[in-house]
């Protein structure tokens, strides 16, 4: 990381910016997007971020990139020593976990598609719980009959699971190559084949989904 620094004055200005950037990142619990940071630091923010990232890489706190933003986070390898138990009330049902994975890998995906992949109706409380966690949100409507709503993951989802982007989802390339990220319904007559748009009286809860 050798910079083409010509004189002491310039070097000092650079250090001042680096310190400010460091302070900004430390002060915030949420990721800060590069645009906001550039507004405070200047156009060289990209290079400074890389420099900070390299500086913190071996330390107990790392600078990580997630979604469109940057954030300071404790190092992942310290997890066993820093582990905080998940509150019982926040524990997710199997249905919610699977539904989140399907949204992450198949997005944008409609509720009907989620149901055809799982072969079961989505119980009330699953999508809103995931939304309450800030992991999913409604995307654009699909331009097909009924214009069903699609669901997508948020930047907070990436942050929560320590992903820089959706391309970093575990084995996403393999799954795509194997054709397993095709979300079309395959068999008609399988349970929970909710055609979006016209939902069967809203819940269609077959009682097998989640708690």
């Amino acid at each position, binding site marked *: 990381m050798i910079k083409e620094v010509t004189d002491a004055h310039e070097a000092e200005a650079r250090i001042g910016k680096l310190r400010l950037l460091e302070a*900004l990142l*430390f*002060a*915030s*619990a*949420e990721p*800060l997007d590069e645009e*906001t940071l550039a507004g*405070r630091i200047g156009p060289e923010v990209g290079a400074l971020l890389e420099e900070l990232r390299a500086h913190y890489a071996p330390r107990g706190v790392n600078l990580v990139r997630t979604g469109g933003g940057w*954030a*300071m*986070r*404790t*190092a*992942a390898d310290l*997890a066993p020593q*820093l*582990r*905080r*138990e998940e509150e019982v009330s926040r524990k997710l049902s*199997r249905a919610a*976990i*699977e539904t*989140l*994975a*399907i949204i*992450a890998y198949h997005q944008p995906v409609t509720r009907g598609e989620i149901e055809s*992949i*799982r*072969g*079961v109706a989505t119980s009330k409380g699953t999508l*809103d719980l995931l*939304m*309450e966690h*800030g992991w999913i*949100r*409604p995307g654009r409507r699909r331009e097909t009959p009924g214009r069903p709503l699609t669901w997508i993951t948020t930047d907070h989802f990436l*942050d*929560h*699971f*320590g*992903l820089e982007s959706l391309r970093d*989802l*575990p*084995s996403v390339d393999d*799954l795509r190559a*194997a054709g*397993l990220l*095709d979300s079309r319904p*395959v*068999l008609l*007559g*399988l*349970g*929970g084949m909710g055609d979006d748009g016209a939902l069967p009286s809203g819940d269609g809860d*077959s*009682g*097998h*989904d*989640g708690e």
Partner: protein
Amino acid sequence: MGDVPAECVAADSPRDPSPSEQLLLVLDGFEGPLDMLLALGRDQKVDLTRISILELADQYLAFVAEARKVRLELAADYLVMAAWLAYLKSRLLLPEPEGEEPSGEDMAAALAFQLQRLEAMKEAAARLFARPRLGIDVHPRGAPEDLDLHRKSVYEVTLFDLLRAYGRHRGRKEAGVLHIAPVRLYSMEEAVQRLSALLGHMPDWATLASFLPGGAGEGGALLTRSALAAHFAATLELAKAGRVELRQEGAFAPLYVRSRRGDGGPPVVGEAGEPAATGNT
């Protein structure tokens, strides 16, 4: 990722449940028929791409048949799947008919694909949740300082807040309609008034039913029943006052009412007119 959901594994400790109880516990652990098929498929201990769909269908049908012995009200989607698999089986075993229907092999391949896809998603979910998670394994700044950075908006409102507010509002509105709707019931006083007014125009015997308010049927069973009860009680009251006569051929037969002529004998009360009913005013 395990082949049997944790809920069913945990069930065998205090006392050994009977096989049928075990079956139900297992069934409750599944997220629907496809999930169950996948668990059965894993038992074949082969790559899902080479799974025997025919064998799987047999296993599933046996499982469902067994489950229905213990619990008849097996959820409909399990039965739909059973019917579909029985059909698939016949298509696989019998010579393919001519026609544009998908072939048995195509159907089997489609099912195999769906199982693989579901399996892939379950594995993906497990891998996703095995990652270091924020707030559990990895931590943000514990003492964040409020900076001027966080754009113009002072108020923190998320789309979730907005949607939940609207959902609450709609929910209240829907519930509100039910709440306000008064329960319309006939009182005996009303019925006495109605009958008194009507009887003047009914010189001869007429069934009690014919006096019931027209269109009461629209009001639902509750209103109809309340009208009948109120009018019946009213006729007893009027009979007691000597203003009407009642007649009934037998228990549960139609009850006839007529306005009492000045000279008539004592009012006739059929056996349906239990004393208790007369006395409760």
